[in-house]
């Protein structure tokens, strides 16, 4: 007999042992390659940022060209807190998430109307506006020189950041893991399912009584908060915030990261971040100045080949290992 829909949903949401393996090995790499801790924390932050984009792109169906706006707002919020004597990292994360969420909430209403094209313009426009704002408010943000003099306290008052990035990685990984669990919970909840309906066909979703605007506003706000936390993590672990956090390149990069790993799949962002950051590290060693070119080439090839290949490839591999369907 075919399994009921209810059973199928539960199956999809079940925690698989391959997932435990993934997270355990992400912890283990720190002990295998302790000298690469800084790179790993960069990966974890990028993974969280891509995860936040996945929430709106993969689950909400909104193509955004300006997701760096929220990353940057979070980074500046955490950075300014740390600069003005409130260096507690968790407090910084909370404030960053709140500020980014407020901006996400306010701007989400502009995305409800209009086509994909309008959304592209609005998201890009908002990111550029914030970039310009950060540039003009040099007395507060440091302008083009970046924010200097951040004093970040120890995490939970116990673990202070070391030079080698060990604490930074464990901190970033923990935050990523917790937020991942939250996102996982959300996308498998009835809210997440209704969101998928909205993405599939907004008109029909509305017809069966789902509040389309409400769902989009909610997921956009949540995604902004996640991106803000990623920005705050970046600010705290590197103790540096520059205009670069709001740059157009960051929005494009995170899109590439997500697409490499797979859209509409929570592990996609994280796997993409691993591949992207390693590639960046490797390419920057060869052609530091023109590595943009290679990013572009990867994007073009990825679209021509079809970016679902990697996702289905990894998923079928996991399926073969785990004996049953794809993960998360």
């Amino acid at each position: 007999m075919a399994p009921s829909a209810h059973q199928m949903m539960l199956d999809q949401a079940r925690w698989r042992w391959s997932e435990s393996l993934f997270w355990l090995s992400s912890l283990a790499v720190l002990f295998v390659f302790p000298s690469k801790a800084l790179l790993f924390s960069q990966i974890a932050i990028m993974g969280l940022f891509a995860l936040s984009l996945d929430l709106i792109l993969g689950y909400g169906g909104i193509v955004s060209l300006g997701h760096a706006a929220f990353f940057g707002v979070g980074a500046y919020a955490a950075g300014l807190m740390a600069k003005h004597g409130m260096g507690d990292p968790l407090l910084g994360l909370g404030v960053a998430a709140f500020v980014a969420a407020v901006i996400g909430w306010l701007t989400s209403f502009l995305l409800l109307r209009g086509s994909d094209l309008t959304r592209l313009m609005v998201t890009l426009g908002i990111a550029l506006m914030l970039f310009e704002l950060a540039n003009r408010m040099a007395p507060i943000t440091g302008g083009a020189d970046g924010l200097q003099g951040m004093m970040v306290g120890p995490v939970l008052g116990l673990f202070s950041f070391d030079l080698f990035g060990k604490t930074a990685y464990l901190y970033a990984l923990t935050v990523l893991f917790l937020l991942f669990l939250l996102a996982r919970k959300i996308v498998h909840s009835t809210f997440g399912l209704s969101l998928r309906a909205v993405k599939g066909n907004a008109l029909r979703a509305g017809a069966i009584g789902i509040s389309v605007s409400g769902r989009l506003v909610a997921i956009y706000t949540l995604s902004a908060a996640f991106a803000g936390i990623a920005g705050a993590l970046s600010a705290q672990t590197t103790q540096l915030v520059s205009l670069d956090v709001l740059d157009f390149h960051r929005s494009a990069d995170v899109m590439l990261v997500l697409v490499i790993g797979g859209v509409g799949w929570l592990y996609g962002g994280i796997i993409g971040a691993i591949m992207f950051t390693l590639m960046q590290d490797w390419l920057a060693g060869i052609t530091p100045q023109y590595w943009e070119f290679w990013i572009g080439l990867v994007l073009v090839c990825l679209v021509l080949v079809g970016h679902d290949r990697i996702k289905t490839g990894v998923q079928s591999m996991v399926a073969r290992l785990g004996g049953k369907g794809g993960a998360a």
Partner: protein
Amino acid sequence: MLTILFDGIAYGMLLFVLACGLSVTMGLMNFINLSHGVFSMAGGYITAFLINRLGVPFLLCLPLAFLFSAALGMVLERTLYRRLYARSHLDQVLFTIGIVFMAVAAVDYVIGSQQQTVKLPEILKGRIDIFGGSIGLYRVFIIALCGCLAVTIQMLLVKTRFGSQLRAAVDDPRVARGMGINVNTVFAITFAVGSGLAGLGGALGTDILGMDPTFPIKFMIYFLIVVTVGGTSGITGAFFASLILGIADVGGKYYVPQIGAFIIYALMLVVLIIRPQGLFSRSKGK
């Protein structure tokens, strides 16, 4: 005051020539192309090269820039872009951003990151006085040329057989094919002409807008605003959107330099709140 207005109109006209090809391919054909600025850059660079290295007269460079960018557009459309017409918007966005990044890095690598300059012919230098305002002759030239172009393009779209074929192909490619219209060729020609106009705009704008490798990224938002604010009704909307954008941008930067850059974004938000489909839209919601 009049000078500012005039500069704004010239700037807006320039934006129109740059973006009007895009308003057809992106606004009407619903193909999201963020790499339009690459063709303008090609036009601008080829002009700078022809004038500074080969000493070709400026006025002769303009048609050459048009042809060069049109050829480039034609080649890329045939080889790459045509595969993407039927793909998702996400794919189109990723692909065209990839093209932009490659073009920016490649130009930076081959030519360098410095600003390109073109020497204008003596006849277009200098200023004239009209109604008490002093206006650069080059601005007058741009307005006249772009105005003629706008009228010509509108005529082409509305009055000629090709225009009707294009409109039919955009509205419903399947039926248009059934009626014996070669939709692929129509799209290819449209794309090439649009790219050529972008190249011409780039050539004309090198002196006013500045031309360096980041041009496609810097002007991406302007193009997007022109197309979305203009709406999907054809090039009339894009024309008015460009003019408004040009005047607002120049005026804003002159009168309130502190917040100058924000004016265009504020304008875009206001238009979108009042008219989500753009200034001019067809009743058929796309």
